[in-house]
């Protein structure tokens, strides 16, 4: 079998200025940090970033925002990255907020080829963002378009060379959804095995969704935990 394992440099060649980049991870956990590092080093900019949250200013996906590489952010929460809020208020960063479960379903819909989802209007989508309403079975619903991306990047614990992925604990979060929604999907993985060595029952993301695998250069160790906010 042709292995999908490539170098991180080859992988990041898929990512160009101005693309829609979707990123797995939730509050820093399960973020593909090596890919993000390399995107920063290569200087890509004007990105449209889609992800659960804005991470932290100096960690994970948040660094793309803090280094002003992102012009548009589709997310649910930016409380842990004050740079995102500041750039938003200064008009440098366009932010579209979605409720977390809705964002997850929009990404999944993109991944499984559905055009859109129907959502109740009162779950946190601002009226200005409600592009189209439809009356159905006596109630109003918002039509929320499915989300896809030019490139999706995810973090997984294990892969085989076909691209089958297994995640780890809470690092699963939105990664399996992001893995389906990219035209190109790149997985950053800790352990890479020959095809056939993962138990088919335990695979969470079938390899058909994954175009490339790269070996992670780590980074988790340095992070530690941080509470996202204290209300």
């Amino acid at each position, binding site marked *: 079998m042709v292995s999908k394992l490539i170098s991180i440099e080859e992988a990041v060649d898929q990512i160009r200025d101005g693309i829609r980049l979707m990123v797995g991870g*939730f*509050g*820093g*956990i*399960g973020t593909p940090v090596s890919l993000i590092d390399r995107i920063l080093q290569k200087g890509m900019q004007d990105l449209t970033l889609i992800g*659960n*949250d*804005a991470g932290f200013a100096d960690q994970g996906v948040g660094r793309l925002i803090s280094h002003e590489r992102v012009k548009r952010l589709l*997310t*649910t*929460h*930016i*409380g*842990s990255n*004050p740079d*995102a*809020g500041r750039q*938003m*208020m200064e008009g440098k960063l366009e*932010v579209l*907020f*979605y*409720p*977390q*479960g*809705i964002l*997850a*379903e929009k*990404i*999944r819909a993109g991944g499984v080829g559905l055009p859109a989802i129907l959502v*109740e209007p*009162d*779950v*946190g989508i601002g009226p200005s963002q409600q592009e189209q309403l439809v009356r159905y079975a006596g109630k109003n619903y918002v039509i929320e378009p499915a989300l896809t991306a030019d490139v999706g990047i995810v973090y997984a*614990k294990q892969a085989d060379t076909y691209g089958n992925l297994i*995640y*780890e*604990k*809470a*690092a*699963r*979060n*939105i*990664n*399996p*959804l992001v893995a389906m929604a990219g035209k190109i999907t790149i997985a950053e993985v800790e352990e890479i095995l020959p095809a056939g060595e993962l138990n088919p029952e335990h695979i*969470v993301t079938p390899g058909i969704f994954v175009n490339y695998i790269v070996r992670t250069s780590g980074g*988790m*160790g340095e*992070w530690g*935990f*941080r*509470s*996202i*906010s*204290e*209300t």
Partner: protein
Amino acid sequence: MGLQIDQRNMIARRAAREILPGMTVNLGIGIPELVADFLPSEWNVMFHSVNGILGVGPFPVQGEENAHLSNAGGTPVTLHSGASFFDSSIAYGMVRSGRVDVAFLGALQVSQRGDLANWIVPGKRVYGIGGGPELARYAKKVIVLMSHLNERNEPKILRECELPLSAKSCVDMIITERAVMKVTKQGLCLTEVMYPYSLEEVVTKTGAPLMISEYLQMVD
């Protein structure tokens, strides 16, 4: 905001009394994260975390944190027996299909009708909408745990929220370091006043009319 750790713990301890054995409970970020500490493990309360865990256990002892195991707030946790992992779409599928019994949320402001504001302070700080609106809309019972006053000592419980709303008419109960209030169709009903605060101190520092429960308790 500005609460001492013992006040935060007191709120969490009181909140735990709203939980019955075997319930499915979501703990939001902040004070809600502390609630689990006040429940006996043998009650088998299943704590739900929107990042994709059902069956969150106690905080680990220092040095035994797992880098891939935190709650939605980023705090390291452990697992309860019977726990499972899944993606966030399923986590919210549990919420949206009405399978979460109680959601504890933090708040910036709550109105007398149970409106919730917890995502933005215009011109100052943007938190983001997060998962609050969906938990508020779909959990069977929604309880806000927060400080009674903001940093400028102004009431956070108001006739109308001044901050943009996260969700309308969703809160069932408010627990602060000063008081416990139920949201009823007639407005807020004060059921408990916490030591060392007086009834008058609670009423004065609440920005909405309070009905006094005939069973009002002064809690030590």
